[in-house]
Structures are given as C-alpha cells and as structure tokens.
C-alpha cells in the first residue's frame, strides 16, 4: 500500500476569485467593481473590492448590500463558471498532460513529470504561470506539496510574509506545514465544531491523535480527515480526458458586413461542425454563437432547438443572430471578423434516430416549422402560453418556436396559478389588439364620460365610435371596473375598464385612463 503511505507530490493551480472574475469578464463589468454572486439568497462568492468593504461568503444578500451599498449582485451561474474556465484548462493541458479539474478556478496535476521536464518544481510552476498569463489570467497562484490537500493550502496561504505566487512545501514536510492551520480547513463543519469543543483547534493536534481512536470515535469520514490533517493525503490526481473540441471558428479577413456573405462563408464550417459531432455519435440540441466585430465587440447568444441542429439550422441561427431583430438584439455596428459556434448541450445521436418506417408526426411538424422559420425569421413562428394577469394582453405570452418562455415554463405556470383578483369574468375576447386602439365614447349630448376618484361615472355612455368608424348608439354596457396595478411604481397604471355592446351587436372591452378611451379587445 504505497499509495496510502506516500502522498502524490502535486501541483495545484488556483485562480483567486474565479467565479466573480469570470462573471465580470463575461458580462463586461469593470474588473475592480464590487461584485457578489448569490446562490439561494446567500453570497456564494465576492470580488476583492467587495471583500474589502466587509462582504463575506455566506452572508445574506441584504446584509451584504448594507455593508457595501454599490454592490453589484448577480445570480451564481455554474455553467458560465465552467465555460469560462475551460479555455484556461485547455491552455494548461497544452504544456502539462494529466490535469484534474477540481472546480472552476482550481486544477491539480502530478508534479513528477513537469518538474523533470522543466528542470525543477519552481521552473514548472513558472511555466504554468506564464501560460496562464498568456490566456489573460494574471493573478494565479501555484502550490506544490505532498498531496492535493496540502498543495491547496499552500496556494491559498494568506500571510504577509509570503508574497510569491509560487509556494513550494519541500517533500516530506507537509505535516509540519499543515500543523498550525485550523480544523475548519477540512471542510467538514460538523467535525470541526466537535473537534473545537474537544479542545482540538489545529490540524497538528488532530493529527497527533491515534489512528485507531479516531476510527472508533469518528468513523471512516473521520479517518479520511485525519489522514488529510496528518499530511498523508490518500487522494490521487484523477486526470481528466480532455473533451473533444467540437466548436467551429471562422475568421473573416477582410471583415464582412453583409449577412448573405457571412452565411455563405460559414456554410462549409457549419457542415463540418455537424459532421464532427456526428462522428462522435452526438447531436447538438443547443448551440452558442459568438460574433466578434472589427471594433473589438463580442456578442454571444444561446439558441435552442426543439430537436437537434442540422447544418442548415446552424446557418439559420447564424443569419438570425447577425441580422438580429433590429440591431438591438445582435448589437452589431461594425463588420464581423470572427464567428464561433460551439455546442452548448449535446445528446447521443441514438436518442434522435428516425424510426424505421419514417419519422413520427412531431418530426414532420418540426421540419415544416423550421422551414417557415427560415422564411419569416426566428421570432416569426410562435407558440402561445397563457400566463397570469389582469389585462388580456398580459395573459398572452408568445414564445418563438423552440425557445423557452422568459423565466421558464415553471414561472408561467406559477403566474397562471395566482388568483389575479379584478380580471374580467366571462368568455375571453377572441381578438386582443397588440396595440390598443383609440375609440370615442360620449354621454348624452356629447358629454364627456369620466370616472372620478370615488369610481363614479360623470355621465352614462350612450354613443360609441369604433376605431375609424362613425358614432352609433350603445345598446348595453357595464363598468367601471377599476384596476390599480403597482401604484407605488413609475411603471404602474390606474385605469377603468368597461364592457360595451354597440348597436350592431359587437362587444368590446374598453379601457378609460388619463389619456382617454381605448379599445383593448373585441369579442368577435
């Protein structure tokens, strides 16, 4: 059992504040801004600027915001974290094989190979730091010790006397190095609390306990913690198999600014992209397209597909993203220099194999609708959901084919399940105007019909003119039903609703607000 007795000499590479740096870089925030990432209402990670204001991991959001008033708060996105770290790991793998990705921002490798190749541990560490600086990570630290646990403590060591980015614990001296640290570093809160109550405050004093006694009192987990504390880290470096890079990149020289040129140029690349995935028996169900422009701007967007992407689908998404629905969405204002497409989620191709006797109905629907989408654009083909709300237009959510509604299906269902007091009873109107239309309603002798603060009508509506029509008599009406939504907010609204039947029998849902009478929907 040599493995259990002699820990693996390990190099650990640590990028401090990785989650906040990654989020700031991805969202284009200033690097020095105070930023906190939130998970389940608690601070998960915070930037150095936020830390200097007293923000700590584990604080409630409100508490963190009260300590640092200009704190930028974002939800923690582990996918983003991994995605941004992936190129860093790939760069490390270029110079050192066999890298274990512990978590985003931290990776471990065996020390033996690199130190022999680079002629020493310090030289190997320096080579790693140079590589990281090349991909834009400047403040990384390297710890070298016996076992990943000791190496991590060396890398994270926070002490005024140690300023070097490379911290090397000489071979065989890890127990000595670990001894003064507190038991919290074992990352077992229950065990640490218990040890403290037993009067054991440091790893050294925990390590001094007898093996058998630790096993009897704390069980197998305790034994593992005891090994770590004693500097006999049993864990080995579990090198990952570098994932195959399925992304497809195309540089344009000179930069292109016309959609058809770009789409034409990318045609072959899109076919290769799909063929490469196919060669690994995979299909992409979501892709991410990144567009870089001449003036250094770079925009990304994820596209989902109801089934899986063919080369034509990829090309369509590229076209839609470059065109944008107006330029606001794509945000492009100069010629495009680089286009990158990467699969965001892949699925084994076997799950998507067509049946022996032709595809199912749904498959036909998908391909047919994709064709329509290629004619009228991604946002031209919609599916509908009913959400909660008081106005008919609020209750209708239109989602492009293949996309998810904003906030996900669950939030739509949740808003639908709320009670919404004050909604109009009876059958829903068959026509809901996307833009409400101006109508004329007046009382006897052309008198204004208004509603005062107490909800009293100033006159009975007797005459009604539909949008662009001639005034006619009102045959039935009811109202006002007042709606006061978000009165504390500038975006709130106060209005009164009416139902009205005109002389030809047409029924309308009308709205009276400060700007006059409007038709919101028609029961036709």
């Amino acid at each position: 059992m040599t493995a259990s007795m002699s820990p693996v000499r390990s190099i650990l590479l640590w990028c401090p504040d990785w989650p906040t740096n990654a989020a700031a870089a991805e969202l284009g925030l200033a690097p020095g801004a105070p930023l906190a990432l939130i998970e389940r209402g608690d601070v998960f990670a915070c930037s150095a600027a936020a830390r200097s204001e007293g923000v700590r991991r584990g604080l409630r959001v409100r508490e963190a915001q009260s300590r640092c008033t200009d704190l930028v708060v974002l939800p923690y996105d582990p996918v983003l974290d991994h995605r941004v770290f992936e190129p860093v790991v790939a760069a490390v793998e270029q110079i050192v094989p066999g890298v274990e990705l512990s978590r985003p921002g931290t990776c471990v490798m065996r020390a033996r190979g690199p130190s022999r190749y680079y002629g020493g541990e310090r030289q190997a560490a320096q080579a790693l730091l140079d590589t990281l600086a090349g991909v834009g990570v400047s403040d990384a630290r390297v710890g070298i010790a016996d076992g990943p646990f000791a190496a991590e403590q060396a890398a994270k060591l926070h002490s005024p006397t140690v300023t070097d980015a490379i911290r090397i614990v000489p071979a065989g001296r890890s127990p000595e190095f670990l001894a003064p640290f507190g038991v919290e570093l074992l990352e077992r809160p229950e065990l640490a609390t218990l040890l403290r109550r037993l009067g054991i405050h440091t790893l050294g004093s925990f390590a001094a306990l007898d093996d058998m006694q630790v096993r009897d009192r704390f069980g197998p987990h305790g034994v593992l913690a005891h090994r770590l504390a004693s500097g006999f880290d049993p864990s080995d470096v579990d090198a990952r198999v570098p994932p195959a890079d399925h992304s497809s990149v195309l540089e344009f020289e000179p930069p292109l600014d016309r959609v058809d040129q770009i789409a034409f140029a990318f045609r072959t690349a899109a076919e290769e992209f799909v063929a490469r995935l196919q060669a690994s028996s995979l299909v992409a169900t979501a892709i991410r397209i990144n567009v870089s422009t001449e003036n250094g701007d770079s925009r990304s967007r994820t596209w989902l597909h109801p089934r899986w992407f063919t080369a034509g689908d990829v090309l369509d998404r590229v076209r839609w993203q470059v065109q944008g629905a107006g330029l606001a969405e794509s945000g492009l204002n100069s010629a495009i220099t680089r286009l990158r497409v990467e699969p965001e989620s892949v699925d084994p191709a076997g799950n998507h194999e067509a049946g022996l006797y032709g595809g199912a109905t749904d498959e036909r629907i998908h391909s047919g609708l994709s064709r329509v989408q290629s004619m009228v654009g991604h946002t031209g083909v919609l599916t509908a959901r009913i959400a909660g709300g008081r106005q008919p237009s609020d209750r209708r959510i239109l989602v492009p084919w293949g996309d998810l509604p904003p906030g996900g299906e669950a939030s739509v269902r949740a808003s639908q399940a709320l009670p919404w007091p004050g909604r109009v009873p009876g059958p829903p109107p068959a026509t809901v105007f996307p833009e409400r239309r101006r109508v004329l309603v007046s009382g006897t002798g052309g008198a204004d019909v208004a509603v005062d603060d107490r909800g009293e009508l100033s006159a009975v509506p007797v005459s009604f003119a539909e949008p662009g029509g001639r005034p006619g008599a009102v045959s039935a009406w009811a109202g006002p039903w007042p709606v006061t939504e978000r009165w504390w907010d500038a975006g709130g609204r106060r209005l009164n609703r009416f139902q009205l039947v005109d002389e030809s029998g047409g029924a309308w849902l009308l709205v009276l607000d400060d700007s006059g009478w409007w038709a919101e929907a028609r029961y036709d």
Partner: protein
Amino acid sequence: MSLSVATPRPPVFAGAPAPVETAANQVAELQARIRGMQRTRIDSHGLPTSPGIAELLPGGVLRAGAAYSVHESTSLALALLAGPSAAGAWCGVVGLPALGVEAAAAAGIDLDRLVLVPEPGEQWLQVTAALADVVTVVLARPPASLSAAEVARLGSRLRQRGSTLVALGEWPQSEATLRVSDDRWMGLGDGHGFLAARRVTVSVSGRTLTGKPRRKQLWLPDTEQVVRPAGLAGVPTRPVPAQPVPATPVRFDEAAVS
C-alpha cells in the same frame, strides 16, 4: 352463408335530417347525394368536428383538403379548429397578430399543438402552404391581393396534403361560407352585469348547398363557455318547424341582473 355486396354509403349522410317534405328539398338532397358518390378522391375524409359546428357544415363534417371561409367572427373560426385540435391534430394560424390565445384555449384548442405566424408579410402564400404541409388545419386571414392562380395553387396543395384551410374573410374556392349575423349578447345590462354568453345566427352557403343559405342558431359560447346549437328556429324553407324546438335556456333573462 350469403354473400352480399354492401353498397358503401358515404358517412356524410349519417346526420342528415330524415323528413323531407317538399319536392325542392328532395331534389336538393338527391343532388347532394349524387355529388357525394361522384367524389373521385380517395383521401377525402372528414376531420373530427365538434358537434355544435358539425350541424352547420355541408355533409356534417369538416372535410380534409377543403377550404372554408368564415366572415367577421374569429370565435366561430376558432370553434371550427377546436374539434380537430381536441382530437390531437396540429393547428396553424397565419396573419392574425390580434388572436386572443385565451379565447383559443377556451374554445377547446390545445395550445401545445398551436403554431402562430402573426406577420407573414409578403410571403403569405408560401408560409400558408408550408404550414399546410405539416399541420391539419390552418386558420388564415388571406391578403386582399391574392390572384385567382394563387388561390388555385394553394387549393390544390391543400387537396394533395389533406389539410383544411379556414379563411377569415372571402375565399373563392371555399366548400362553405359561414357568416355570423344577429349578434345577441346576454348578461350585459345598462350599467350592470357582464358579457356572459352570445347567441348568433350563422348562415351557411356553399358549393354543395343549393338554394338559399342554411341558417342556424348557435351559442357562441353559452354560459358554460361551450359552443352548441341553440334550437332549430329559423329554417327558411319550412314555414313551421316540424320537430319540437328544444327549449332554449331562459336563465339569461334571470341572470342578466347580477
């Protein structure tokens, strides 16, 4: 064991009214029957149709591959789509940016199988044809500038694919044209109540219906938000209805004041 060759009777006459009184009616009925037998297409089957609507349509079903034209009532058009959608068919809607999705769901259309193309722009014909390839029923508002050749092309595409078009507006080659008239809303008074139910007269004319348009009373919808026929009043060719008229609900007059 006796071998008998059953004459296949088109199922479209299963729901036709039995008593035929006047000679004109008899002639019309026979003519319709001949036309039904002369039908040459093999795939001309009926789509599942909701009962309230089936009574209106010639043949008693919504036919696959045909076009129907509905005038001035989105609710009636949605009611046409409800039967096939409830039976599992996909529906498409082209060129109706103001469609009330909630009304569609209330009519019985499954939103999971409803696809909307609100703004087809110049490509109305291509989009409608592409949708008709894959969905069973397409509800569309045809643009004014549609040439006869384009109408014929879409018509043959529909026949070939066996999908049905419900045009909101004039459609030259429609199987039947449905018009809503005599709108009467119940439940809304003079400053009180709310719109609860509507009773309309639907007049149906079409290629296979000779003579005067057929007129039916329809709840669109009733207080339970269900589309259903409202008695047999107003059959024009018969001066007095032979069958007893089913009692129409009178509860609206009582429910009007709420």
